[in-house]
């Protein structure tokens, strides 16, 4: 089948180059800048928390036994009545859903209709990776981890662990591509999103305003106690 756009590109660039051969791969390309090197896990955690705070997010270090108290405080302070959360083993283990119910918060399924999800005050997710340099959460997507949970509620809480730390974009991207279906590799999952601070705009007279379309508040809890982690 002929493609006039491709043909015209070839005419313009000149015909000396060999024709495209899908099995030959993409050929050589310029070198890439090397990755950032972390000092220690502790310094990475501190930098991550620091960056989230600089972006007007709330960032805290928590241990597993302090989660229910922290949830209680969050619910009371922000008037949370409806919440939705990802279905993950970590949340199961931390008893998040039960704690919320005991606080009289309505739990909406993360697979509920979008109109219903839009009325949630709180959405709780994990992250696949976190990036300390920029204070970024990297979220994947699946039926258990729907993307709307970090988008529709007015407050987004991400609960993360130090194991999710990656030094740089290089590692995140390499792992993400590697997770695609093996037969079609490189073939990535259908969706990935980086979240760096709460939704913001400066479109009216350059006044910074949070919570335009996405969540107004971003809270990040990093679970640290009783965990030993090391970079290899």
């Amino acid at each position: 089948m002929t493609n006039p756009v491709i043909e015209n590109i070839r005419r313009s660039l000149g015909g000396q180059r060999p024709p495209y051969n899908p099995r030959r791969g993409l050929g050589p390309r310029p070198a890439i800048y090397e990755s950032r090197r972390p000092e220690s896990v502790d310094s990475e955690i501190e930098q991550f928390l620091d960056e989230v705070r600089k972006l007007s997010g709330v960032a805290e270090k928590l241990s597993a036994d302090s989660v229910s108290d922290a949830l209680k405080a969050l619910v009371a302070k922000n008037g949370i009545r409806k919440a939705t959360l990802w279905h993950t083993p970590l949340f199961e283990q931390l008893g998040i859903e039960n704690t919320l119910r005991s606080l009289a918060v309505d739990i909406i399924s993360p697979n509920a209709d979008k109109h219903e999800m839009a009325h949630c005050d709180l959405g709780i997710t994990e992250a696949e990776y976190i990036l300390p340099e920029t204070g970024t959460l990297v979220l994947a997507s699946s039926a258990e981890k729907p993307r709307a949970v970090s988008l529709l509620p007015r407050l987004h809480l991400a609960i993360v662990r130090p194991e999710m730390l990656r030094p740089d974009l290089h590692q995140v991207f390499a792992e993400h591509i590697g997770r695609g279906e093996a037969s079609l590799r490189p073939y990535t999952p259908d969706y990935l999103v980086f979240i760096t601070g709460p939704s913001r705009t400066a479109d009216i007279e350059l006044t910074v305003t949070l919570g335009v379309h996405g969540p107004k508040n971003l809270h990040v809890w990093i679970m640290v106690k009783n965990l030993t982690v090391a970079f290899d």
Partner: protein
Amino acid sequence: MSETPTYIGFEAYTGHIPPSIPSAVQQATARFAVGRAARVSELPQFEQLRQIASDIRLHTIENMDTYLLRFEEKVTAAGGHVHWAATAEDARQIVLQIAREHNVKLAVKSKSMATEEIGLNHALETAGIEALETDLGEYIIQLAGTGPSHIIVPAIHLKKEEIAAIFSEKLGIDAPADPIELTRIAREILREKFLNAEMGVSGANFLIAETGTLVMVTNEGNGRMCTTMPDLHVAVVGIDKIIPDWESLTVFLKLLARSATGQKLSTYTQFITGPRRAEGEFGPKEFHIVLLDNGRSDVLKDPIGREVFKCIRCGACANVCPVYKNVGGFAYGWFISGPIGAIFAPQMLGTPTARELPYASTLCGACADVCPVKIPIPTILRHLRRRVAEGDQIAASTMPAPIAAAAKLSALALAQNWIYRFGARILPPVMALFTRDSWISSAPYPLNRWTKSRPLLAFTAGFRSWWKNRNAK
């Protein structure tokens, strides 16, 4: 706005710039330029990154066909649909066709230059489909019925009181002149629209050939809404947005937000590869991408001019440009303004339409110093000035014949010593005919282009004879 212009009268426009424009634009440009400088100073590898980014872009431009075909193959494998649009009209028809097939009544849009380029909103509205801009700044100017005055803050020329008045008039509500309150009102209205739209329309910042992935960078979250809530997502993207792989993307992501707004990363960066795969997940059931050529493949012929396609649309060049800061975005007459607009429009629309833009510059070089992909903007501006004045392999001269002839003649004279000397000798007596009190206040056509703006001092002595006799008493 957003219709393809037939002539861009930069000079005529600058004759009556509303006074609100330069002051508002300079507030924005100053803020971004300062933010950029802070981020750049934190990152010692910035210069190295710029060089790598430039190399990757050049490599990609020279192999654009290969990477685009790889992209198509991967999107198709991921269950998406790829459409090729040779012209703006093709692109409009493709999108309209998709919209009709899905019985779309409301389309929500996230800021996209490619849809501005093809005038998609107008085409959709004509077909009875509401096309709603959802970026706050774009939403405001859509309500106001004007065009963008800045690449990143499109409504920067409007004061909060004016925006409140527009909201009150167009939305029939009582809107206070308070940015936070106005933002809240827009959030509520647009949220309903996101939830009810049948189609989301977006552009893209990058297309990754390696996996067929579309990369979108936004701060407000409207980009996420447009590509998550409706069941149908249609992206319209220029073919120049292609990059080889995810490793290359690391370089561009490190440069983009830092250069644009002085952020390390924008709030949301999404990576979309085909439609949603999981049952129970959100996201579009159907994913279409329209790859827009619209003249780009012709521009590739010119090895100097095609470097314009290295651009990652950060706006840094505009933020430092002394001309842009005084005239604002409207003066450039198309959806893309500032120094990048001045090298983009003349190549895409042709020099007959945009012949004034290569001259809309002082050639000070500030743009090239900040450009994260090292586009030699002043070099391309001079290259295009030459095309306008003398013509080249791409296009003939667009100057009136006497001026083109005069340009040729002076080039000849400056290159040939004897012609130059002869001219220098006959010039003073010729000038004397027009001189009053040693000033020439109106020269004959076509030289009156000079004297219209300032008088010319008549030559009194020849340099060569003065030099020869300088020591004689």
